[in-house]
């Protein structure tokens, strides 16, 4: 099987797909990045092309850079956290594999969302319940894929996978906390340096 076929094969055959990908080394960082770009685009396409009868968004407020950074941060921190826990728990997966399967698992969510955006131009407000059901389905589908994916690459049992996923989510919180801590520390350090510099500059004058 060609590498680009895996994301779609996985959608319908998660158990077989992830195993096969592992044995034939079907991981492709390039394809995962392409999927990630589609995920980022989703936000903008949604604001721009959702049918006006469902919602009229303030397109002025869409910020591509912030969307990109936020989405990247979420998946990247997830991958880091999962990798750090799974290494401790004898998982076989590497960081790049985790990144790849996380993005591959997002495919149903992304595809369904794009379909919903197209449908929203045809449906009326009263029928938009279908859209929220579809999106819910997409989220569930992606969650199932991510669980099977992690199970496959780390060669875990199901219960162990759930356990690591809970730990991973906790780990993400810790990482975010540390990031904020570092940010505020840096802010204080820079402000200290700036005040010292100003002080010296005023004295020398």
């Amino acid at each position, binding site marked *: 099987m060609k590498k680009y076929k895996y994301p779609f094969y996985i959608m319908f055959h998660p158990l077989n797909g992830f195993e096969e990908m592992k044995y034939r080394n079907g991981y492709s960082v390039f394809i995962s990045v392409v999927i990630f770009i589609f995920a980022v685009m989703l936000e903008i396409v949604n604001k721009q092309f959702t049918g*006006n009868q469902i919602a*009229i968004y303030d397109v002025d407020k869409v910020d591509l850079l912030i969307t990109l950074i936020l989405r990247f941060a979420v998946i990247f921190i997830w991958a880091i956290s999962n990798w750090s826990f799974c290494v401790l728990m004898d998982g076989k997966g590497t960081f790049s594999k985790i990144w790849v399967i996380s993005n591959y698992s997002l495919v149903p969510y992304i595809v369904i969302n794009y379909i919903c955006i197209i449908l929203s131009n*045809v449906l009326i*407000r009263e029928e938009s319940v279908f859209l929220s059901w579809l999106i819910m389905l997409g989220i569930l589908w992606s969650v199932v894929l991510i669980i099977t994916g992690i199970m496959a690459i780390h060669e875990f049992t199901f219960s162990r996978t759930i356990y690591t996923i809970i730990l991973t989510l906790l780990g993400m919180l810790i990482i975010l906390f540390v990031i904020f801590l570092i940010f505020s520390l840096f802010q204080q350090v820079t402000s200290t340096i700036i005040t010292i510099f100003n002080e010296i500059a005023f004295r020398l004058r």
Partner: protein
Amino acid sequence: MEELSLRHNIFKKYVLIVLLAIISLQIPIFAAPSQSYTYDSYGKSVASPPVYEVSDVVNGINIGCDSLKKPNDMFVDKNGSIYILDTGNNRVIITKNNFKIEKIISSFNIDGKESPLNEPKGIYVDSKANIYVADTGNNRVVLIDKEGNIKKQLLKPNSSAYDQEKDFLPVKVVADRSDNTYIISTGINEGIMVFDSEAKFQGFYGSNKVVQTTEVLTDFFWKQIMSKEQKEQLGRQVPPELRALDISEDDFIFSLTNMNLSVWADYKDEADKIRKLNPKGKDILVNKMPEYAQAAFEKDSKNLNYADTNYDENGFVNIIDNLKGRILQFDSDMNLVIAFGTLGDYKGAFKNPSAIESYKEQLYVLDSSKCNITIFKLTDFGEKVHTAIIVYSEGNYNAAITPWNEVLKLNTNYEADYIGIGNAYLSQQEYLKAMEYFKIGRDSKKYNDAFKLYRISVIRKYFAFFVLGILIFALFIVWIVKRKKTLTANKDRM
């Protein structure tokens, strides 16, 4: 010849100078600090051309009596007669519409004794020209005729429904067609006090409600644990007091609640600011303001201190605030038509506006610190906006399209007119055009209505093609499935 051309040149110069002078003159006029604005559907305030301009300012000396002193209320009746309640001088000044004095009432005869007014704070005149005065200092409401003869007195009710420890301090009064009197009294938060035509207290009406917020619930929780002394310190959760009243010709009462008072800080979001009460005391005002515009108005309300409300004959609701001197005008759907006005010392600005009245598209604002009345009249733009809204609210969408288009020429930021034009096209069954205007007006719900009808019309038009398309699609799928089956069968055989 040469002289002529020279003169011509000089003439040209003069024209240029005059033109420049006109332009430079216009700048301060249009850059007046009293900027008019509305909200768009994202809750941003958008500058608008002025709807009202100052037409006249009148004080006591202009009228022909000595100057007013802290006038607190005013009433303008259907004939344009103006009743000014000169609180500081304890008198009622009745003038014709041209501010020519008809009568001044300061006291009246009760059972042979002279009884002067004492710090009266509210006035209302019914259709039979009976004058209701909330005589606050004397704890009564008096009903007098135009000649100054007393007809009726409303005193502190003896009823058990009324907390006898509280003083009767009437501040606002209105009356309906069947002579029931509605009174707001300071310190009473049970609602509006109602007296029937025989001056008997009937009960309370249309109070604000305490809404279950987390604050109220946590207080309730603590009260279960606390001792009696602690409970007394905690204070009670009571609904906010009403601030002002007005009544429409068909006896619907408009009540205004002030959200600015710090005591009611927790209820700012819960109680409605403006309510239209039916005879049962239920609020029937359907607020059609877009969500974010509503939020913006509520956010503004927290920094404003509403003093008075007025319902005019065309269905516009005017509110005045005395913290920023802002006048807000709403149409009958509670869409903000315009907000304008400011504090200041110049003509048309206020210091402490206390009452607002309307007469034939004119607004009268009484200022109790400046002791004058400012009269606003509609600008050209305002007249167009008003005709458009009046015709539109009558449901005559097609007739409203011309005035809406004229408004659009003068102010492209006015979202309501896009929706108005969209509605006209919708009733003309031009769905695509309607959709276009609703999109610019950012009204997703209206757009949905137009789109729904448009979709039906398209499906009806191309029904045969739709059926054919679905049939072909079904056949195609059947063909693919069969082909796949034969292919797999072939594969198996091989």
